[in-house]
């Protein structure tokens, strides 16, 4: 196990290296550097000075090496575009918690609701509830979230000024009750939760109904176990395995936020920041964000893979021909 984790970490390190290299090279080929954009109209001298100040006059290889040396110390340099040129890590530390809040609530809402809905509809197949759940699930999977966001704002939001930029404050997770009840969180979380909720409900339904049809459930019923016992001991426990394989990989995705939702609701989170930093050619920000998000995903996938073995001892890590 330890060897497996070590091997994965080494491979993650190389992946990060290649990813950062690709992004770095591509980024420096964006037409227009960070200071030649728009109507700022620097004189050539001023431009050269600015580029020297931020080290952009050095050759690409040297800049990449500088980046690497900084990155291992978690120092991605200072932002070009954010007012006051704060260090990139500081900006990320300020914006990611917002995204994390929304993400955590989203996971909470979508997983609890989704699993409940899935179990109910598996138990009452083809009933009204089942059809309603299936309908919601289809809607959640097929409707793009920026569209849902737009219409929720249209229906509930604009009157109260939700979704206006500058409106967002960053409340602590718990301040006189869960922050989810604050208006700011309510709509984004609902919008964001709909797609994972649909997925969770769908997979729960199918894996629970598979488990319900299995022989061991019939045996359990035949030996006179109560419905509840059958449910807890046999159905849910076995239904969990296929659910985990599909659902756990959703989590890192949700925790790094959705571009669209953050843009529509004006949430000052990671995704929105990425869009602005691409538009303003904020090289250090782009690098920092991509590398951190990729690293986070890599670590989360590793944790997911380890969790599989804990839940289902039949799965062996490492070796094998791969998936």
């Amino acid at each position, binding site marked *: 196990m330890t060897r497996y984790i070590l091997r994965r970490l080494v491979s993650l390190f190389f992946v990060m290296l290649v990813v950062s290299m690709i992004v770095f090279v*591509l*980024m420096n080929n964006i037409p227009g550097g960070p200071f030649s954009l728009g109507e700022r109209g620097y004189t050539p001298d001023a431009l050269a000075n600015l580029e020297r100040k931020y080290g952009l006059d050095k050759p690409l290889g040297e800049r990449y090496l500088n980046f690497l040396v900084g990155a291992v110390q978690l120092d991605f340099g200072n932002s070009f575009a954010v007012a006051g040129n704060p260090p990139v890590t500081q900006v990320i530390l300020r914006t990611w918690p917002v995204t994390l809040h929304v993400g955590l609530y989203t996971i909470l809402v979508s997983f609890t609701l989704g699993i409940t809905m899935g179990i109910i509809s598996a138990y009452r197949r083809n009933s009204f509830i089942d059809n309603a759940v299936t309908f919601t699930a289809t809607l959640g999977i097929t409707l*793009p979230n920026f569209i849902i966001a737009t219409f929720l*704002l249209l229906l509930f939001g604009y009157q109260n000024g939700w979704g206006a930029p500058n409106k967002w404050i960053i409340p602590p997770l718990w301040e006189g009750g869960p922050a989810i009840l604050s208006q700011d969180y309510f709509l984004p979380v609902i919008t964001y939760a709909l797609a994972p909720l649909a997925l969770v409900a769908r997979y729960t339904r199918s894996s629970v109904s598979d488990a319900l049809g299995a022989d061991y459930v019939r045996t359990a019923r035949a030996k006179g176990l109560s419905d509840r016992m059958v449910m807890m001991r046999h159905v849910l426990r076995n239904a969990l395995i296929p659910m985990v394989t599909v659902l756990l990989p959703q989590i890192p995705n949700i925790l790094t936020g959705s*571009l*669209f939702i953050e843009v529509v609701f004006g949430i000052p989170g990671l995704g929105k920041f990425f869009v602005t930093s691409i538009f303003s050619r904020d090289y250090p920000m782009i690098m920092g*964000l991509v590398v951190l*998000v*990729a690293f986070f995903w890599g670590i989360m996938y590793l944790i997911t893979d380890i969790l599989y073995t804990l839940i289902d001892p039949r799965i062996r890590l490492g070796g094998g021909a791969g998936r």
Partner: protein
Amino acid sequence: MTISPPPVAIRASRKVAELAPKVLKRSLWRDAVRRFRRNRLAMLGFVLLLCLLGMAIFAELLAPYDYGRVFLTLRSNTLPFVNPAHPLGLDGSSRDYLSRLIFGARTSMLVGLMVPLISFAIGVPLGALAGYVGGRFDFVVMRVVEVATAIPPLLFALFLLSIVGNGVWNVIAVLAVTAWIEPTRLTRAQFITYREQDFVLAARSLGAQPWRIIFVHILRNTISPLIVSFTFAVPLAIFAEAGLSFLGIGITEPTASWGKMVGSGIGNSIRVYYHIALFPTIMVALTMLSFSFVGDGLQEALDPQRPDSR
């Protein structure tokens, strides 16, 4: 020696032989078509899809005006159902909204079909080779896949678009760059499971060439999951294009794109000029719904292991 009637067993087998052609006609595809046609939702999706495709192909004939034509004399943002000459109103630049919606189908369909086509054209051969040959080639391909999955696809698409610039074909190229991973993985996994199976061994021992085994024997078996995955890749591409255009990158101005139209319709003016965001939303939703209904239907229809109870 008199010719006696053939024994019962032979007669019976002759009867089987007479019946055989009928039985043989029930191929996988025929079964699939039959199952698909019985699936009401799938058929609904299929009909919708044909309508949308028709809209995309015959946009010039169907649309009352050109998508870029500006009606300078009329007020911009005219509401729908007011002016009979423009049943769905005008947009913010005084262009006929119905025409733009119809032409928007072309953009969506173009992106939606081209992106999976390109990504499958890359991914299927790559995955097939990696799965069949294995060894060092497989190792290299899998490392590339690993690197590609490490980057969040939408962020990467956004990033690439800011490098290559806007435009329909750029959007298609960029989305294809991020979309080839799925078909590669799927094909590889399929090839690994089939590589060692008896029918492949049999073909190999009969002296079949590798390309024949790959294309005739294995690929034919993997075709149904590939088709299903293709139908699900289409709405994803449409979603990505709509999203990028919604953010204001991607499709450039005179071209009609539903995502961009939704994007231009949000904001405070939505409470009055609701049509700008509402109509393209309906179109995107219908498109995605029809593709996922068809995808679900195909998945059920193309699964030969499925007991055909209906």
